[in-house]
């Protein structure tokens, strides 16, 4: 009887999770989505605790309290730190899955059927590599580790042999689950592979990698469902896995690159030599001159990039938005899918700065608007505005969909200096006749422009 109750509670929980994701698809229903997601989780935990074989409540409660104590500050991090926070929480999710898999293996070895062993091996491999990969990603995003790609000779061969060896050991374990001594070796290899996987990944590829790790953590939980014969785990994990998969496909498409290229391509290292060429002329302007141009514009599109987040300029940008809007100017934001360090990062930062979300345009909606726009103001974005992506066949970003900033009547670019961006690619946008370079720190410069506009 109790058994049936648990199944129904789980069923309700699954329905909650599906609705939760469905309602998150649009802003008006998004809060409801979070609430029902919480309900789903409460049902899942409550249903599990109904199981009479579960005891030791004191330890469980203790562990839950410890988790909550770590979880609350992690939820209070500033929005600029959300990418590293997300990476860190992938590590926690993967840790749980890998630990449960390990415990389950030692409980049941050698009495594991082959199919269960397949699921268990996948759970542990995905879980273990995601732990260290996520920690590495978090370290890079927090700049505790060098953000440049770290490369060495034969890197891909080394990486793939480590993973290959882990998979071979996994296969041996599937055939013969009694060889328990092999298990820790497989575990270690995956932990090492996680580190190796992220070493060659640079900052601009982080959105894809974060999404991919999201997918791995979900799949690992789903595999746990097969091991424990628990459909709730299977469904919730699969939802998660598909979400991460979709996001990483979107990110790859936005960069015109394949998964393999992101993971094994070590973007950026090839190009550095080609960057140092002759000095081409460009025009620069002061904050006052920029303010003059902006005050006579009737439409402005602001293109924010990671540089805006680094400079913490989003609140100044909002002041600029307010001043210009008050003067009757139509101000909107064009957001490239890979702007920032995780999917949707720019939107959250701008929303936090109280910029109404209906002013945030996706790339496909923004591009037709540029030709009718007086000023395109680029703040801390570089490669996603490079017209070279359309025609320079030799460029590493060739074919990448870009924001058509160069079609606006005037282009302004706020930038620290003429140094090329992350990918080390020179941006021909900067040398166009209609482009004004505004040199300075994004936050300071926008502040000066706002002051100049306000005093007019």
């Amino acid at each position, binding site marked *: 009887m109790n058994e049936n109750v648990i199944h129904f509670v789980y069923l309700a929980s699954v329905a909650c999770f599906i609705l939760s994701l469905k309602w998150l698809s649009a802003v008006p229903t998004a809060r409801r989505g979070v609430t029902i997601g919480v309900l789903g989780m409460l049902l899942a935990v409550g249903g599990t605790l109904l199981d009479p074989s579960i005891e030791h409540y004191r330890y469980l409660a203790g562990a839950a309290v410890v988790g909550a104590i770590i979880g*609350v500050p992690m939820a209070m*991090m500033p929005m600029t730190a959300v990418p590293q926070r997300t990476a860190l929480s992938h590590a926690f999710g993967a840790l749980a899955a890998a630990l449960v898999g390990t415990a389950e293996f030692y409980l049941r070895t050698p009495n594991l059927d082959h199919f269960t062993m397949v699921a268990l091996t996948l759970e542990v491999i995905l879980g273990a590599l995601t732990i260290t990969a996520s920690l590495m990603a978090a370290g890079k995003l927090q700049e505790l580790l060098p953000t440049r790609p770290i490369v060495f000779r034969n890197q891909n061969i080394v990486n793939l042999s480590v993973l290959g060896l882990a998979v071979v050991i996994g296969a041996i374990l599937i055939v013969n689950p009694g060889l328990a001594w092999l298990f820790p070796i497989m575990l270690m290899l995956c932990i090492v592979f996680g580190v190796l996987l992220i070493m060659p990944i640079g900052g601009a590829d982080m959105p894809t990698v974060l999404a991919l790790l999201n997918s791995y*953590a*979900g799949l690992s939980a789903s595999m746990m469902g097969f091991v*424990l014969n628990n459909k709730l785990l299977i469904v919730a994990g699969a*939802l998660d896995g*598909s979400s991460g998969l979709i996001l990483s496909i979107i990110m790859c498409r936005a960069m015109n690159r394949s998964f393999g290229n992101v993971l094994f391509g070590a973007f950026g290292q090839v190009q550095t030599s080609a960057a140092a060429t002759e000095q081409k002329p460009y025009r620069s302007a002061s904050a006052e001159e920029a303010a003059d141009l902006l005050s006579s514009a009737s439409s402005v599109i602001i293109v924010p990039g990671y540089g805006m987040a680094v400079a913490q300029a989003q609140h100044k940008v909002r002041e600029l938005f307010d001043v210009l809007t008050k003067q009757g100017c139509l101000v909107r934001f064009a957001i490239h899918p890979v702007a920032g360090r995780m999917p949707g990062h720019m939107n959250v930062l701008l929303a936090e700065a109280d910029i109404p979300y209906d002013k945030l345009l996706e790339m496909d909606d923004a591009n037709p608007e540029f030709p009718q726009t007086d000023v395109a103001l680029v703040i801390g974005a570089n490669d996603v505005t490079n017209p070279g992506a359309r025609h320079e066949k030799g460029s590493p970003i060739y074919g990448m969909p870009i924001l058509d900033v160069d079609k606006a009547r005037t282009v302004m670019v706020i930038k620290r200096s003429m140094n090329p961006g992350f990918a080390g690619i020179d941006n021909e946008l900067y040398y166009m006749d209609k482009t004004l370079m505004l040199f300075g720190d994004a936050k300071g410069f926008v502040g000066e422009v706002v002051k100049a506009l306000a005093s007019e």
Partner: protein
Amino acid sequence: MNPDTISNLFVFLLATFLGLEVIRRVSPLLHTPLMSLTNAISAIAVVGSLIIAGRSETTLSGVLGTVAVAASMVNIVGGYLITYRMVKMFKKREPKKP
């Protein structure tokens, strides 16, 4: 292969396709909250952790399970809280229209 495995595979397949369809519709505006929400949902590993820790059949499984409960709990609490914080920030225009 036992019948449970087969039905589990059906469930997995259907859930994956359902996930792809549902997530495809999520506005890029909300991709960051989506990631933190799915993060919280992947803390469903708490179910397995509770079972392993609650049964504590061996000391090893008890310890590993308890740590897993704590790790999942981090994501449940942290994931939902930050998602809620983010979703709350998305507002329509509150400054007056020109």
